[in-house]
């Protein structure tokens, strides 16, 4: 990686710096938090571990949208599939279903199973639909994203419907190393139940690192080149021997696998699944992360995910309170109460989420479509059409 950095040409990677920064930040973050909160890091670390779920999702969606150029608006469906797979395979739930017997499979194995299940659904959905034009594929995935949570909600004999499934097995590790990061002395612990937020955080970081390595390997392989080519010019790619449908299907199902993987982690950590957590808003949140961060660029989407996560789940949660205080302090306390349609400043601010998302998507695509941290290649590609003059296609071309 360092050698390529110095080799120059279009493969020179400002990403290397980004990876290093992220890695260092990830390692020092819990220590920093521990110091700042004086050992009460739990709340913040939980949030960080949750953010990790979105980072995984963003990396996965990036493969579909960023690498292969397929707009998937129902990414949360595979997330749900992964989560419910864990709920079925690692809890007492199956007892209340017609099956009768509960299933308890280890978290780590379910991770793999969920990837496979989600990927299979990706293939089932993708095989007949990936040849559709981009708009239609987007709508189909949107429809799928609506169908899946609804099925989970309606099929209550198997899924307990709206109530969801709770009391999922807590993941456990056969071996765990305690240390200053969790506030204890160095020691090995056996049969460690992953409960503490720091443990989840560490697992999360490791999972993200593994995923980044795998996705990066793919990007720089035969398949990654095929994705780039198909995204650029499908006809030319096919003429050069690339089976475009197969290649797209691989991207789609790999993306689905990541989503399922993240779903299992999410279910394991939350110990609960409910059909309400997998709606269109989740799919859009991840899309915003990918678009804002930099489509097709792994460190970009990681940063996009962290940034959006922070804005939505931390900033926007605290903002209403700040707004109330601020507004009262400058003498406009009349804004605090609701009247008519106006819901009061606190509620008003907490309702801003959708508008923010919409604005981010539109503004980014209009002003900086390559995102905040683009890959060099995408930067050139996406800037292309935004200011170009319309050209009448040469109607006599290719008629000889």
């Amino acid at each position: 990686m360092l050698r390529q950095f110095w080799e120059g040409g279009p493969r020179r990677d400002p990403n290397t710096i980004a990876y290093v920064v992220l890695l260092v930040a990830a390692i020092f973050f819990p220590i920093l938090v521990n110091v700042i909160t004086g050992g009460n890091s739990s709340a913040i670390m939980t949030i960080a571990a949750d953010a990790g779920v979105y980072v995984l999702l963003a990396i996965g969606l990036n493969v579909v949208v960023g690498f292969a150029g397929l707009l998937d608006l129902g990414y949360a469906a595979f997330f749900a599939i992964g989560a419910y797979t864990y709920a079925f395979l690692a809890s007492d739930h199956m007892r209340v279903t017609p099956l009768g017997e509960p299933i308890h499979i280890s978290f780590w194995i379910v991770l793999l199973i969920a990837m496979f299940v989600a990927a299979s659904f990706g293939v089932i959905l993708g095989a007949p639909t990936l040849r559709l034009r981009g708009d239609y594929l987007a709508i189909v995935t949107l429809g799928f994203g609506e169908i899946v949570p609804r099925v989970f909600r309606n099929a209550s004999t198997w899924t307990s419907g709206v109530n969801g499934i709770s009391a999922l097995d807590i993941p456990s590790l056969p071996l765990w190393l305690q240390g200053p990061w969790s506030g204890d002395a160095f020691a090995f612990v056996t049969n460690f139940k992953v409960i503490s937020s720091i443990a989840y955080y560490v697992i999360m970081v490791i999972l993200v690192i593994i995923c980044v390595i795998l996705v990066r390997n793919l990007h720089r392989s035969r398949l990654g080149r095929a994705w780039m080519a198909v995204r650029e010019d499908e006809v030319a790619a096919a003429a050069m021997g690339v089976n475009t449908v197969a290649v797209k299907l691989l991207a789609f199902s790999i993306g689905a696998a990541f989503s399922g993987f993240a779903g299992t982690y999410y279910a394991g950590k939350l110990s609960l699944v409910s059909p309400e957590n997998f709606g269109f808003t989740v799919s859009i949140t991840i899309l915003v992360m990918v678009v804002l961060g930099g489509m097709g660029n792994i460190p970009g989407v990681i940063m996009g995910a962290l940034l959006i996560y922070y804005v939505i789940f931390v900033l926007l949660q605290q903002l209403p309170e700040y707004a109330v205080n601020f507004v009262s302090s400058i003498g406009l306390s009349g804004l605090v109460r609701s009247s008519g349609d106006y819901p009061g400043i606190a509620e008003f601010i907490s309702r801003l989420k959708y508008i923010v998302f919409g604005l981010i998507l539109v503004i980014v695509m209009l002003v900086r479509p390559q995102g905040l941290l683009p890959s060099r290649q995408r930067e050139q590609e996406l800037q292309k059409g935004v200011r170009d003059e319309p050209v009448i296609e040469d109607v006599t071309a290719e008629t000889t």
Partner: protein
Amino acid sequence: MTVVTAPPILRVDHVTKRFGGLVAVDDVTFDVKKGEIFALIGPNGAGKTTLFNGITGIFPPTTGRVIFQDREITGAKPHQVATLGIARTFQNIRLFEYMSALDNVRLGQHCRMHAKLWDSLFKTPVERAEERRVSDRAIELLQFVGIERYTHTYARNLPYGSQRRLEIARALATNPALLLLDEPAAGFTPQEKVELMGLVHKIVDNGVTVFLIEHDMKVVMGVSRRIVVLDHGEKIAEGTPEQVRNDQRVIEAYLGKQH
């Protein structure tokens, strides 16, 4: 070099292509012999590129057959055609503009690579060895067509002549038995055309049959062993450059009836 009695590598057998009411290619039959340089000429709109598209699977012929190396490939999909050994360039240059020249040529080798998903995910020694081999071959091909100085340049930034050469290199990367060139000399200076003819000869010397569409008569007459002429979708002549040059129908097609 070329043996006239060599078996045909490509047979176009009564191929017709209709678009609604328009007959673009009308009952065309000819053979391309292995190891030769075969040219397809004709005035604008004669159906030449349409024929190429029909051969390479972009759309199937309405009727007729296409037989490659004794195997029927009528209606096969483009990527299948490429895997079977027919590569092509495009009249309007369809490079992957935002990929480097090296990546373009490495992509060309896609159908000759064996790396599986597993190998790509984990960068196994198998994959790494193959990537090295592919990169080496790509650089070889860039040298072969003479643009190795642009190895790491984005394809869109290459000068025009080099872009056409890159397309040829990319097509050669698929290891074809038959190379289809669609107007490879379009927009070239006379000097570049001479160089191109030399390149075509080099390609054939390396065992690849070349089938080209071209407008420039000097180029055509200069490189080709045999020529077929289309006009309004119909074949109107076939033969050596001398025979075609003096064929009355050909002269009329190009210059009008008075001549």
